C-alpha cells in the first residue's frame, strides 16, 4: 500500500491544466492512455506553428521555407535519438538511426518485411512472445508464410514471467529474428529485454523490441536494452497521431532493403533501376508528416521539462494505487500480477461474470473511459483462458481522484448486475 507521502503526491495534479481536453472536461476520468494519450497544449500549438510558419514540402525544395521544414525533421530526429539513448561515444545523437513511420505498427511491418526478406530462409525461426500485440504478431505470421520460416512463441509461467529456461529453450541456432514487446499492453508487465537480447545475439539473431507501451512510461536506452531495432508510436506519449518511430543500428538499417518505395527515398532512377537514398530516407517514401515530427519534438520537450524521473515515479505510484484498489474489491479479478510494482501503465481485470463491454458501457455512463475487449492480443487471452477483459491504464496526468472514481464506478457496475440478487 502507498504511504501517506505517496498518497499526497498522487492527490495533487499539476499536469491536468496543461491538457486542454482534460482541463475542459473536469468530470471526465480518462483511464485509456495505453490506447492513446492526451496531448498538452504545447504539442497542439506546435502542430499549428509548423503549418503557419514553415509549411513547405521538405527535402527537395531549394527555397528557405522548404529548408526550414527539412531542418525541423532533422531536429526532431536528433531529439528522438537523444530521448532513447541512440548516441555515439561522444554523446552525439544519431539522428540517421531514426526512421519516421505512421506508428509502431508500421514500424514493425517495415522490420518484418525488410529484415525478414534479408534474413529468413525455409526452416529458420522467428521468436516472439505469446503476449504480443497483433502489430508484433501478424507481420511475422505473414513473413514466415512468405519465406517458409517458423514462428515460435515464448510463453509465460504461472507468475507471468518469461523464464531464463524458456528463453534458452526457444531461442536457438535456427533463430534468426527475436521480436518481443518490452511492456505488455494487456498485463502491464515488463519483460527482461536485456536477457532476451543477450540470448538472441549469442545465437546470431537480431533483436527487435516493441516499445509502444514502454517508451511512454520509462526511460528507455537502446544501448542498455541491447536491441538492434525499436518501434514506438508518438500518440501514446503525448505526441500527435499519425507519426511513429523505428530506431535501428545504422549498420543494420544500411543493409536492410526498403519497405515502401517511390519519391524521396531514392538517389537516382533509370527506366529499369533505382539507387536508394541513404538511411533514414531510404525507408521514408513520399512526403513525410513534418508537422507531426515537429509536434513530437515538442512532446519530448514537454516530457523533459516536467522531468522524466518525476513523471515515471508518479506513474509507478498511480499504477500501484490502481492495482491495490482493484485488488481490494472482492468482485474484481486482476488478469496479471496483483503486485502493482510489476505493472507499468496498464492493469487488466474482470468484474466477476460481467462482460467487459457492459463494464465499459456502464462506466462510460459515469464519464469514465476504459478499454474493454481483447486488446489486440487474442492469442494471449486464449492462453490465459479469457475471451476479453477490461483494462484501465494511467499516465502522469491522472490522479488519485481518477482511480477513486473508477472504483466507485465499478461498484456501480456490480450493483447493476448483482445488487438485487
Amino acid at each position, binding site marked *: 500500500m502507498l504511504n501517506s507521502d505517496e498518497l499526497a503526491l498522487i492527490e495533487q495534479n499539476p499536469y491536468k491544466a496543461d491538457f486542454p481536453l482534460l482541463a475542459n472536461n473536469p468530470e471526465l476520468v480518462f483511464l485509456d492512455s495505453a490506447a492513446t494519450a492526451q496531448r498538452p497544449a504545447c504539442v497542439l500549438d506546435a502542430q499549428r506553428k509548423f503549418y503557419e510558419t514553415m509549411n513547405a514540402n521538405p527535402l527537395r525544395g531549394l527555397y528557405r521555407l522548404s529548408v526550414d521544414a527539412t531542418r525541423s525533421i532533422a531536429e526532431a530526429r536528433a531529439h528522438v535519438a537523444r530521448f532513447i539513448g541512440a548516441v555515439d561515444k561522444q554523446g552525439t545523437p544519431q539522428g540517421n538511426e531514426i526512421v519516421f513511420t505512421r506508428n509502431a505498427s508500421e514500424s514493425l511491418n517495415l522490420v518484418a518485411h525488410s529484415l525478414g526478406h534479408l534474413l529468413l530462409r525455409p526452416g529458420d525461426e522467428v521468436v516472439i512472445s505469446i503476449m504480443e500485440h497483433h502489430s508484433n504478431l501478424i507481420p511475422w505470421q505473414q513473413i514466415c508464410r512468405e519465406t517458409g520460416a517458423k514462428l515460435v512463441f515464448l510463453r509465460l509461467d504461472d507468475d507471468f514471467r518469461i523464464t531464463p529456461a524458456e528463453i534458452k529453450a526457444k531461442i536457438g541456432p535456427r533463430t534468426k529474428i527475436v521480436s518481443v514487446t518490452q511492456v505488455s499492453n494487456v498485463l502491464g508487465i515488463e519483460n527482461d529485454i536485456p536477457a532476451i537480447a543477450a540470448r538472441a545475439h549469442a545465437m546470431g539473431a537480431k533483436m527487435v523490441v516493441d516499445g509502444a507501451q514502454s517508451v511512454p512510461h520509462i526511460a528507455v536506452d537502446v544501448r542498455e536494452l541491447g536491441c538492434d531495432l525499436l518501434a514506438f508510436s508518438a500518440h501514446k506519449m503525448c505526441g500527435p497521431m499519425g507519426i511513429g518511430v523505428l530506431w535501428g543500428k545504422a549498420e543494420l538499417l544500411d543493409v536492410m532493403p526498403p519497405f515502401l518505395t517511390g519519391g524521396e527515398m531514392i538517389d537516382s532512377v533509370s527506366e529499369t533501376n533505382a539507387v536508394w537514398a541513404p538511411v533514414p530516407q531510404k525507408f521514408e517514401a513520399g512526403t513525410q508528416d513534418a508537422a507531426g515530427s515537429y509536434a513530437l519534438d515538442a512532446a519530448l520537450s514537454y516530457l523533459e521539462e516536467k522531468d522524466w524521473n518525476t513523471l515515471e515515479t508518479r506513474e509507478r505510484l498511480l499504477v500501484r494505487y490502481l492495482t491495490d484498489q482493484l485488488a481490494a474489491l472482492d468482485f474484481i479479478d486482476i488478469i496479471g500480477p496483483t503486485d502493482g510494482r510489476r505493472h507499468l501503465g496498464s492493469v487488466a481485470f474482470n468484474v466477476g461474470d*460481467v*462482460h*467487459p*463491454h*457492459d463494464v465499459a*458501457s*456502464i462506466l*462510460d*455512463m*459515469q464519464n469514465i473511459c476504459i478499454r474493454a*475487449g*481483447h486488446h489486440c492480443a487474442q492469442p494471449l487471452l486464449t492462453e490465459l483462458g479469457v*475471451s*476479453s477483459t477490461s483494462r484501465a491504464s494511467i499516465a502522469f496526468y491522472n490522479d488519485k481522484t481518477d482511480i477513486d472514481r473508477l472504483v466507485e464506478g465499478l461498484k*456501480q457496475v456490480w450493483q*447493476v*448486475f448483482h445488487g*438485487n*440478487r
Partner: protein
Amino acid sequence: METVNLYNAAFMDHVAHPDYKYQMDDPTHTHEGINPSCGDDLIFSVKIGDDGVIEEAAYQGSGCAISQASADMMADLITDKTPQQAIELCRLFMDMVRGTETDPDKLALLEDAASLKDISHMPARVKCAELAWRTLEEMLEDRGN
C-alpha cells in the same frame, strides 16, 4: 444516472432470469450468430408449426448483457408471429438501433425491445444488440434453401 435508461430493472431481469434461454427439443430451424471481436456467441432456434406460425423460440450461448437481453426480448416478441412478420420486426429493430427509425408508433411494435432504442447512441454496442436479430433474419430468409 443514465444507467437506469438502459441497464434498468426490466432489462436486467431478461439477463438474470431469461425466459427463452434453453435447449429446444425438435426445432425446425437453428442458426448460429457470432461477434468475433466480442466473443458473443448465440445459437437461436425456432419451431415453425404446420400453420406457418413460430410456435416456439429459444436461444443458447454467451455474451454481454445487451446481446443476451436483446435475444430474450426478441424470442418473446416473435412467438406466435409468422416468419415474414418476424423478418419485418428484425429489420425494424436494426433500423432502430442504427438510428434510422425513430417513429415511436412504429417502434411500439417491438414491445419490450423498444427499450433498447438508446443503443443508437452507443455505436460500439450496436452489433451486440443486433446479434440475435441478424441471426434470426438470416435463418428465416435461408429457410427451405
